[in-house]
């Protein structure tokens, strides 16, 4: 293994994406790419700039972002709470876990027909799908996280006078945190996937609506802007998850500065 300098480590990740864009631009300007298949980077940039100027982009972005966050909060908090409950209480585990594990095996997008019958194609349906999509990763990882807390630490806590809420707050919850945050990452991935599927289904606003409409008018450049936006949002969510990990898991050897 050769050691890479700091500069190299900064620069290298950018080589491939920038190279691809340059290649894309070159192929477009030589006329090898049909604009319907893949418009030039310039026209995509122009389409993006136009969407920003008219304010359309932010309107759609806000709607999609709002849906994603609302779904995450609803599904995530239920998953987290139930995960804690089944992790801590044997009774809750016996009562809930096998049923939840069974429901988990149904891909959440397979619920679309049923969800449409229940909620129609409005906002509720989208929120329900997203909430369902984030529920399971958070539930499962929270449950396992609580279960896998070192029993030696729990025993120590009891000998040192902790019980009930204090034992939970000082030992079980922080011990489960690494696993909970892994769950959050999976949940974020599932959140975008479900959002895109739900918005493609039917929407009057949002990035999905923007791209679907653009497709009908053959505006490939707008479709590409929409796709890039999803990528950007996904990356943003990942960055936020990483920041949370750094903050909450400052003590974990994996997150300490080398």
């Amino acid at each position, binding site marked *: 293994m050769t050691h890479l300098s700091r500069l190299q480590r900064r620069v290298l990740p950018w080589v491939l994406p920038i190279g691809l864009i340059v290649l894309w631009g070159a192929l477009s300007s030589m006329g090898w790419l049909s604009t319907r298949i893949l418009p030039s980077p310039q026209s995509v940039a122009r389409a993006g700039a136009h969407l920003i100027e008219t304010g359309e982009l932010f309107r759609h972005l806000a709607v999609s972002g709002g849906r994603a966050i609302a779904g995450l909060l609803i599904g995530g908090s239920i998953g987290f709470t139930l995960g804690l409950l089944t992790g801590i209480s044997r009774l809750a585990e016996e009562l809930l876990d096998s049923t939840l594990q069974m429901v988990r095996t149904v891909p959440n997008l397979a619920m679309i027909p049923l969800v449409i019958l229940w909620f129609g194609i409005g906002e509720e349906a989208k929120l329900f799908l997203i909430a369902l999509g984030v529920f399971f990763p958070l539930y499962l990882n929270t449950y396992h996280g609580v279960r896998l807390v070192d029993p030696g630490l729990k025993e120590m806590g009891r*000998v*040192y006078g902790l019980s009930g809420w204090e034992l939970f707050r000082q030992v079980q919850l922080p011990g489960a945190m690494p696993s909970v945050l892994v769950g959050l990452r999976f949940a974020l991935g599932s959140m975008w996937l479900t959002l895109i599927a739900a918005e493609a289904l039917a929407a009057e606003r949002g990035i999905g609506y923007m791209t679907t409409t653009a497709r009908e008018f053959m505006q490939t450049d707008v479709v590409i802007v929409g796709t890039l936006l999803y990528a950007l949002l996904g990356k943003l969510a990942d960055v936020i998850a990483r920041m949370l990990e750094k903050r909450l898991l400052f003590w974990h050897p994996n997150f300490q500065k080398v």
Partner: protein
Amino acid sequence: MALLLEREILPTPSDVRRGASLQLLGVTKDFGGNNVVDGIHLEVSPGEFVAIVGRSGCGKSTLLRLLSGLETPSKGELRVDGISLRGLNGEARMMFQEARLLPWKRVRENVRLGLLKSQYAEADHALRSVGLESRENDLPTILSGGQRQRVALARALASRPRLLLLDEPLSALDALTRLEMQGLISELRREQGFTTVLVTHDVEEAVSLADRVIVMEKGRFVEQVRVTLSHPRQKSQSAFGAISERILECLLREIPRPILSE
């Protein structure tokens, strides 16, 4: 051991508190029809240091867990200061084989675990008494094994317990650190007067620390030796060697002799 000499002495009323007394009356613990602890009778007077030695699986750790209240006897009675023990033993603090520090809490917070705000000064004092006040803001993960056990000792003593239970806490340490820790435990015990029960398979450790060494085998006590040598004890002393040898011989004997009474 410079750190012991530099220790500041806080005038606290708990200095005069004595250790807890223990009485075990035919205590038995059975796991699945197997008597891991088998009708043990034992009396420990306040401030006494008792070491229990035995091979692994002889039931000594279970006995310690019974004393802490983590396990309840299947038969017999366990009294602390003459009162029958129910639930966790509030007078006791325990040190385990591993330090069991909470990795997400800094050293100072680990020592303060389970204490009230009014006891924090005691906790900080305990950390000073093990010589680690300079590491109070560190996370346990960056400490050495010996330092972690010193923090665990400070945590055990922070609440000024009247009974200290030691479950082979030094067995994973290197020889030098172990000697240092033995000195520290011995010193702090003389200063604070708590009762101590140590479980170990290290005969020399038992002899250098304890007032009484008990040999345990298959859930029963098979031998008991009083150690009256003055502290600090040296391995080179001939009496030390003789006692160690006697206990070791007893441990190595294949067929256990009948139970000895007090």
